[in-house]
């Protein structure tokens, strides 16, 4: 960059610009996931008996493991943020990579889970419950994957060179949001049977 944009540095609300934008991103994501979850719930209430038979086939154990991975990764990413406030590049990178590792656990378990479900004959087309199941968890998995890639980029491109520290916090907020989505998907898809 040839020069710094003045506008980016201003902060009339008191919230740094990057973080303010992340809040808006999360706000719009709430509505994207929320629209999907609301559609799922409407169908679920309409087709209660048949959908609970279908839902009994989801794998609570894997779902629980994945909840645990994401909860723990949330802790790690908040530690990364704390380390970034101390401008401790080594610690920040370590916590970020641990977060990515747990995201990898999540994706691995997710893959295994999809494989077993498909093996048992439940695909995207089996019934509407499974369509919602794969769409919602798939969309969430896509967000996890994106989060992992961005985390890696921030660790290697920014933190390593000790610049753009605020990005650690911003991606952390996104990661927490992804965690929260899973906190709701878990009871919706795995516990309520």
């Amino acid at each position: 960059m040839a020069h710094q944009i003045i506008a980016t540095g201003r902060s009339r609300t008191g919230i740094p610009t990057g973080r303010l934008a992340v809040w808006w991103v999360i706000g719009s994501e709430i509505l994207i996931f929320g629209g999907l979850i609301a559609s799922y719930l409407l169908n679920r209430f309409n087709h209660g008996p048949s959908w609970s038979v279908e839902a009994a086939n989801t794998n609570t154990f894997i779902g629980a493991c994945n909840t645990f991975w994401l909860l723990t990764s949330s802790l790690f990413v908040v530690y990364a943020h704390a380390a970034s406030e101390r401008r401790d590049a080594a610690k920040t990178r370590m916590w970020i990579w641990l977060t990515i590792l747990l995201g990898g656990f999540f994706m691995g378990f997710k893959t295994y889970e999809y494989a077993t479900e498909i093996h048992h004959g439940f695909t995207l087309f089996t019934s509407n419950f499974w369509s919602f199941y794969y769409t919602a968890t798939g969309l969430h998995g896509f967000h996890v994957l994106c989060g992992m890639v961005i985390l890696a980029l921030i660790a290697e491109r920014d933190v390593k060179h000790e610049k753009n520290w605020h990005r650690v916090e911003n991606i952390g907020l996104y990661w927490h949001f992804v965690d929260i989505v899973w906190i709701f998907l878990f009871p919706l898809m795995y516990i309520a049977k």
Partner: protein
Amino acid sequence: MAGHNHPSYLKIYIILVVLFAVSVIGPEVAPMFGAYAKAVVLLTAFGIAIWKAYLVCAYFMHLKFEKVYAPYILLACLSLLFVFFFGTATDAMFSNGHNWFKDLDEEAMVKEAEARSYVLNKDSHGDHGDHGHGAHDDHGDEDKAH
């Protein structure tokens, strides 16, 4: 954000894990409550999900210490979801309306779902014909993991 007096992250995390454990155990112990089983499952599943989400938002995302704009943005988006849900529920949630009905055979759908259910069919001697809410069999989870 340094300098705020928030509780240690580890403490919040431990609370979250305990809550998470309760939400997993909920359906397993729910049958003990008899008629209230369904309420217990809903409470441990969704009540705790909301509590967990609150903890993550408030402490991990620092919303408790953020300027007021941020929680308002999120709450506004959340409240619009409820608007959407309740506006849509009047017809998308029901099979019978004021002057219309959806030509759906729920019984047949249940039968179909039971026929392809893996949990119900992998051991045919089980008494898993019951497809009601909440009363979930308590031996499925470990078996399904492999």
